[in-house]
């Protein structure tokens, strides 16, 4: 099973594409895919305090066929790697990947000399769009990641920008 090829249309409707992208960006359905610690912060983001549904991304889908974005939240091991790949391949186009947490970015603290079982980063086998560092990142960082992804899809930012570490304002 490979990544499905979407034939590009000969005629492009620029305005329509923009509209489509705007729709996509504001209803990013993530896949329920908790691997480890970061998954709990992902749950917190979905919980009452942070409320990811303000961004239209609260619809955590258990099935890859129904989701747009895969939030890789946790460590990917060699045993899990084929599974992650299969899940990604099953997602319909267009699809995005968010690598949440240090483990998904580079193997994190598990990247050491005797490493025999941890894949050093989701980008080894997936095209990652947004990286969210932290161990685990705060829920705000995940929200920031979703906003960054929206920005990437539509080309402009709909939400106010917060500088990293900005605590007042």
């Amino acid at each position, binding site marked *: 099973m490979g990544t499905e090829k979407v034939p590009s249309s000969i005629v492009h409707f620029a305005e329509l594409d923009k509209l489509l992208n705007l729709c996509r960006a504001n209803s990013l359905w993530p896949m329920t895919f908790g691997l480890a610690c970061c998954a709990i*912060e992902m749950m917190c983001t979905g919980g009452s305090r942070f409320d990811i549904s303000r961004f239209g991304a609260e619809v955590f889908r258990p099935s890859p066929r129904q989701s747009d974005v895969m939030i890789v939240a946790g460590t990917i091991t060699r045993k899990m790697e084929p599974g992650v790949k299969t899940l990604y391949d099953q997602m319909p186009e267009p699809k995005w990947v968010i690598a949440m947490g240090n483990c998904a970015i580079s193997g994190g603290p598990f990247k050491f000399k005797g490493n025999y079982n941890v894949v050093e980063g989701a980008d080894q086998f997936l095209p990652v769009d947004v990286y969210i560092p932290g161990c685990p990142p705060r829920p705000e960082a995940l929200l920031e990641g979703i906003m960054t992804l929206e920005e990437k899809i539509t080309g402009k930012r709909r939400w106010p920008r917060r500088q990293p570490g900005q605590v007042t304002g």
Partner: protein
Amino acid sequence: MTVPIQCRPDEVFVLNLGPQHPATHGVLRVKLTMDGEYIVKAEPVLGYIHRMHEKMAEAGSFAQFMPNTARMDYLHALAYNHGYVLAVERAAGIEVPERAEYIRVITVELNRLSSHLLWWAAFLLDLGGFTPLLYAFDDRERILDLLERITGSRLTYCYFRFGGVYNDIDDEFIAGTRDFIKRLRSRLPRMYHDLVTHNIILIKRLKDIGFITPEQCRKYGATGPVARGSGINYDVRKNEPYSVYPEFDFDVPVYTECDSMARYMVRMDEIEQSLRIIEQALDKLPDGPVKAKKVPKILKPAAGDYYAAVEAARGAFGCRLVCDGGKSAYRLKLRSPTFSNLSLFGEVAEGMLLADALAFMGSLDLVIPEIDR
């Protein structure tokens, strides 16, 4: 509730549950042999999140392994911090000041509360109730705020140090904890119990489901709420006291019904007992240093092996530390409670309906990275 399997051997089929399945709480995979909706054989397949903790313990120094302990059972990370710290302190002969012990108990119990609340939310999510998650996370966030204030992190704490804790608690934390205890006390009966525990749907789904006999618990080495729900009165905090737990007056909830409802009730009662412990610890909190003096930067415990056990939210967590006199552990065996608790899943799930087996699995309170380590 066991139903005899009546179909022909060639009519059974294999159903693959996981590793990506919302009910398995992570990346557990269960190979189920099914006869229609009934489970003939269930075989959990582990290792999808095996993160080499035991190998890493041998690679770095004792202090360098500390962050790993928080990443095994991230829901009750401080208990794992505690277990590891106890083992190393036992090996190196480090005395811990009293105030540090009290702070450890307070933070561990707060963490236990947050773990049980999350279990409650996730378990009810498995059973089809979404609202409880929102209520539980409201309370849980308040605990995390308190812990973040002290430890600096929300989930994977690396707060304990050999011979004490990283830093002292302040008055605002104490006041905040007292407020929180009051709040949760009033919410427990009026929100948690009224909304969920007495709900007829929950009772119907959990009563007489997942029957684990005390003998099965013993044979498989199950501990924690799973054993206590089967009438085994075993809690490391009482049976093999460590830290300053003997100072506190608390009960160990035991239910003899042996079903999923009993395990649910054990955890709900444990929330109340944890509140009691925190309250007493805050009252008795002594003054003094929070770190032992003269803890060498590089620990070199004498050769030999040492064992330390703590009661984590899921059962008895044990650390077996084998030292050869060097700077790092020669071998560190981490005995995780859910590894043993899950090993009885196969036997108990036989003959169950699939939907009930998922409710039963939720009542075991699995944290997969802790099983796989």
